[in-house]
């Protein structure tokens, strides 16, 4: 089957599953049980996102969603959808590591100032692998073309002298491949119905967006766990400020800084679980000396949180910085998240300040 036909038929999701299975069964070699991912469509309009590409009508079978704690990308406006093959469900036996059916596709659209810039895509191409891609929108905003695996620098000006770049696939993987799950925004905590109204850059839940409750009701989560609705996941916290800060750090830092990452020796555990999270998870990692030295500071005197001069905290210094050698996250944005820096500073002052 030609790749384009394959992808079109994927829009009718059951067919997609069948063809993935066929590839799996006919693929030659010793790794035949794992389908070799096919080439990605060269245009966004061929990925199955739209039921009518000429009017950019999103296929109504796709599920729109919005994680309660979004990622900061220089203030981009984002829209997200997932397509689960017809008749399939997500295996949530491990509440932290949802297992998606083969053929699942995620899309995430980025706009600046009302203009679409890129649409990123994640495709579960076989039992274990996800493919990453991004599509760069054309000037007339009618379609987007597959960006090179090395990314595309400077696709949109977002502030004077600052440009947004489409990340390379290696950079996608830097964030998406560093914990036990590649999917970062479609999880028990992110889709909880006990949504954090104070989330930093929190997005409104628009009509029709799925949450744990609607997904369970539609039998899209297996096994059905009623506690996800009766006791929806929520970060336990002493204040609404603390809850919002922990949620922010979980999404924006926890993808890399978690106990399953190669960065675990740094002991920064920002990732929040669905249940049993809170300050206890991160605290030990915050009150220690860093390997990294703050520029200008005496070597080996920098702490993640500096209780005496909060502004000197490595955590805040690196969140404020957008110089390549010190910025955190190290990739994915070119302007600091001023609102988040402000929230985290105020929270750290209250929580850790020692005169």
């Amino acid at each position: 089957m030609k790749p384009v036909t394959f992808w079109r038929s994927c829009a009718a999701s059951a067919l997609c599953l069948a063809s993935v299975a066929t590839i799996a069964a006919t693929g030659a070699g010793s790794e035949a049980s794992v389908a070799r991912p096919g080439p990605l469509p060269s245009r966004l309009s061929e990925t199955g996102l739209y039921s009518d590409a000429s009017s950019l009508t999103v296929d109504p079978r796709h599920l729109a969603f919005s994680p309660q704690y979004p990622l900061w990308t220089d203030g981009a406006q984002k829209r997200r959808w997932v397509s689960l093959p017809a008749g399939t469900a997500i295996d949530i036996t491990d509440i932290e590591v949802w297992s998606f059916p083969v053929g699942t596709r995620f899309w995430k659209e980025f706009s600046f100032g009302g203009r679409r810039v890129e649409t990123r895509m994640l495709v579960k191409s076989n039992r274990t692998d996800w493919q990453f891609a991004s599509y760069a929108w054309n000037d007339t905003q009618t379609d987007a073309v597959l960006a090179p695996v090395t990314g595309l620098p400077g696709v949109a000006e977002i502030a004077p002298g600052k440009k947004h770049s489409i990340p390379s696939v290696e950079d996608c993987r830097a964030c998406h491949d560093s914990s036990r799950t590649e999917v970062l925004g479609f999880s028990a905590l992110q889709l909880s119905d006990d949504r954090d109204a104070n989330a930093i850059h929190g997005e409104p839940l628009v009509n029709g967006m799925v949450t744990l409750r609607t997904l369970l009701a539609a039998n899209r989560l297996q096994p059905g766990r009623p506690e996800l609705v009766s006791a929806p996941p929520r970060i336990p916290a002493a204040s609404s400020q603390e809850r919002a800060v922990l949620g922010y750090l979980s999404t924006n830092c926890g993808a890399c800084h978690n106990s399953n990452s190669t960065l675990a020796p740094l002991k920064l555990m920002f990732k929040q679980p669905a249940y049993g999270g809170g300050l206890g998870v991160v605290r030990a990692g915050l009150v220690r000396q860093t390997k990294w030295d703050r520029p200008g500071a005496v070597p080996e005197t920098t702490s993640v949180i500096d209780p005496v001069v909060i502004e000197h905290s490595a955590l805040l210094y690196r969140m404020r910085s957008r110089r390549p050698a010190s910025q955190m996250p190290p990739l994915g944005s070119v302007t600091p998240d001023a609102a988040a820096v402000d929230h985290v500073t105020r929270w750290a002052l209250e929580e850790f300040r020692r005169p």
Partner: protein
Amino acid sequence: MTQRISTMLLTTTALALVTTMVGRADAPPQTSSKASEAADAAQVKRGQYLVKIMACNDCHTPWIVGANGPEPDMTRMLSGHPAQMTLPPAPGPTGPWVMHFAGTNTAWAGPWGVSFTANLTPDKDSGLGEWTEDMFVATIRTGRHQGKGRVVLPPMPIGQYKNATDEDLKAIFRYLQSIPAIRNKVPTPLEPEE
């Protein structure tokens, strides 16, 4: 039909696996551990050879003026820019001369700021002691620290080294993990004025 083929394939794979396992179990354990020791030694040797010809010591071992003129100080082999060395601010670029480097060959000033060569010895706190093979390979392949951090600064020749085979990179890492650990906390790079 599709399902039948999958099942058949699975069975074949399973059979192949069983065969391999039986094959392994057949071999006397002693020979296999000796064989793996020999393979390990060969890998270390290959890594040592690559480190020698790929000039790692040129930049990662501080230079001194010895009896025969300037040479890398092998008592501090691959331990990076000496932490206790204090440097005055680097002179700015003049004309086409945009880069400066210190006599140790371990501190480098240019448009990126000032970079200091890393400690590649297996010291736990200041070197690569906590690194895994995957992290090392990812660093060279992506040009980002540990494959996901900041960009590795010049003059580290990432553009060339990223073309090495996995096998060679793994051998280099294996060798680096076998050399004496030296504690030397290399400073973080200085950022350019904005």
